[in-house]
């Protein structure tokens, strides 16, 4: 496009504010919502057809196992499979699909194979909060610490702090989380002992909270929950803070080179104002969009990290389900994790549009 055409066409006459705002608002958010919904639809269908495409169709296998070792008739086995998998095998595919989706909409994810009769939804209800709690807290902490640290070393580029922090950040973000978990357990839990006691009481920290304490928003319970989640949270933070620091450092350096920062200093604005509203806010923008991707990554990491730390989150439950080939639970957990990631993507997009008016408010550039 002839760039000059775009830039020089003068601003269109202003529509009445109300209509203009609605036109802009609807177009952007609707698009983002649409994209999220379509992704959800795509993933649910992916899982649905996945089971069918598998060489050893798990449901078929389950039905045969029932008939073989429990002597059930095909009819009984099929019935049981139907409500366990929330899928009726005999009906034509599209009917199965509609049935599957409608059950899904009602929150019915089928029954667990392993622990008969317990709906997958209940299992997820018990484990999900712990992962959301541990991943959520660590994301928040590592994002804030990373952003601050990145800004500091960007401002003090020549100093001693910069090379150390940068090298450490790339070290922490390169080494996989689950390996760091093992290293923590080995060194803090076992190898390093001070007068006979290991630095970190690994075994007591297992589980989500000490059985005796009454769950609820009491200070004692919260303190205990943090004690138990200490290890997973520290590993999540260690693996992600480096990434945020380096990203913020390079964004800040770029922003410091922008003209509007020089003009802000020429206008005599205070350093504080420039660092926050000018450099900080513009440097933070790209980080917000990366936030969404990192949420997906954190959920992925939880599978192994929660297993090593014996922390009863959704990741550890997924691992257990996969090991025991408990397909409905596997399917349910994966869908929930994906929905959460997509939902947080949407949130990050909305947050981004609030921070950056160029997206929310169309203008000459459109």
């Amino acid at each position, binding site marked *: 496009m002839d760039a000059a055409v775009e830039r020089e066409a003068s601003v269109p006459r202003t529509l009445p504010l109300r209509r203009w705002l609605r036109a802009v608002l609807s177009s952007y958010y609707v698009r983002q919502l649409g994209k999220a919904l379509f992704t959800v639809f795509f993933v649910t269908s992916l899982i649905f057809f996945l089971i069918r495409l598998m060489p050893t169709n798990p449901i078929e296998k389950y039905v045969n196992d029932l008939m073989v070792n429990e002597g059930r008739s095909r009819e009984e086995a099929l019935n049981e499979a139907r409500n366990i998998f929330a899928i009726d095998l005999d009906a034509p595919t599209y009917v199965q699909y509609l049935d599957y989706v409608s059950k899904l909409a009602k929150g019915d994810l089928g029954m667990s194979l392993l622990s008969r009769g317990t709906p997958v939804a209940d299992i997820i209800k018990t484990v999900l909060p712990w992962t959301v709690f541990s991943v959520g807290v660590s994301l928040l902490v590592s994002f804030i610490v990373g952003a601050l640290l990145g800004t500091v070393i960007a401002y003090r580029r020549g100093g001693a702090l910069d090379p150390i922090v940068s090298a450490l950040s790339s070290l922490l973000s390169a080494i996989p989380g689950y390996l760091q978990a093992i290293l923590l357990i080995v060194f803090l839990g076992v190898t390093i002992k001070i007068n006979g006691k290991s630095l970190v009481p690994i075994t007591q920290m297992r589980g989500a909270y000490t059985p005796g304490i009454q769950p609820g928003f009491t200070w004692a319970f919260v303190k205990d929950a943090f004690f138990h989640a200490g290890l997973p949270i520290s590993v999540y933070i260690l693996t992600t803070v480096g990434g945020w620091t380096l990203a913020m450092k390079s964004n800040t350096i770029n922003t410091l080179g922008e003209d509007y920062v020089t003009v802000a200093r020429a206008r005599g604005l205070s350093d504080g104002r420039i660092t926050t509203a000018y450099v900080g806010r513009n440097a933070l923008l790209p980080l917000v969009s990366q936030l969404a991707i990192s949420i997906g990554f954190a*959920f992925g990491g939880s599978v192994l990290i929660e297993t090593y730390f014996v922390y009863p989150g959704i990741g550890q439950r997924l691992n257990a389900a996969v090991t025991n080939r408990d397909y409905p639970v596997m399917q349910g957990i994966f869908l929930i994790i994906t929905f959460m990631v997509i939902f947080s993507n949407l949130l990050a997009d909305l947050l981004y549009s609030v921070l950056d008016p160029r997206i929310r408010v169309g203008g000459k550039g459109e």
Partner: protein
Amino acid sequence: MSEDAVRSTTVYQRTAKDVLLGMWGSIARFFRLMARNRLGFVGFLIILFYFVVSFLGPLVMPVDNNTKVDRIFERPSWRHPLGMDHQGRDVLSQVVNGGRDILTTALLTALISTAIGITLGALASVIGGGVDNLLVMLADIFMAVPQFPLLVVLAGFIQVSSMAFLALILAVLSWPGLFRAVRAQVLSLRERDYVEAAVLLDLGTPHIIFREILPNMMSYIAISFAFSMTGAIYSQTGLVLLGLVPFSSQNWGVMISIAWTRGAIFYRDAAVYILAPVFAIAIFQLAMVWMTRSLEEVFNPRLRARA
């Protein structure tokens, strides 16, 4: 530099001698460029060391498979610098032999995902229109789905029998990253004046792609290749630790998993049995990240000239 030297560096009709001279010259220049960034060069050397040890090591030090009950979890000694495992076998030989499969899978994954990324990226940006929108949407969806959980579920459903098959799965999940980078690059490079000039001079599409556009994208491709390798190692080792990739090859992941289940961590001297493979993977991943710093400079025209 005499006229002949200038002529010999042209791309076209060159004698065998020139080709050899050219190749040696470019390898020497490649090393000099890699050395420009200290950290990057250290990373590069470590990676080189890994490949040499992993592919040549097994010939020199075959894996010690005979169980020696009296030497279980023996302390590291001069003869066995990394001590013995839970069956009294030499840990060092396992580490030396543990790299080949991981690196092969990682390389395969990186190659496949780079190939997919480049072809789809170029396709989307050149054809544009419907194809472009479709591919971009597909990439967005793949990026939105959390990779590792999907991998875990996939591995739960299907038997991953061979390294190549695992590499294919990993590649199919990791192509969107490079796809978006390539697409953005090609779109921006295509608008560049010197590409327009090449069109005007009727130099032909092959010339435009391989002599005008690709050289300017090499740093992108190299860095994405490196990151898809580290991604492949991350996922692969994770699956092995979950016991979802049962092929019984010698592999650091398998070592960690066995060491963990055998409780190696509770024997003070045996800790090295689990730490050795953990550090092997960690250091490789770190070296890869450091190496990407050099890769950026190798393909930066401003520096290439001065080397």
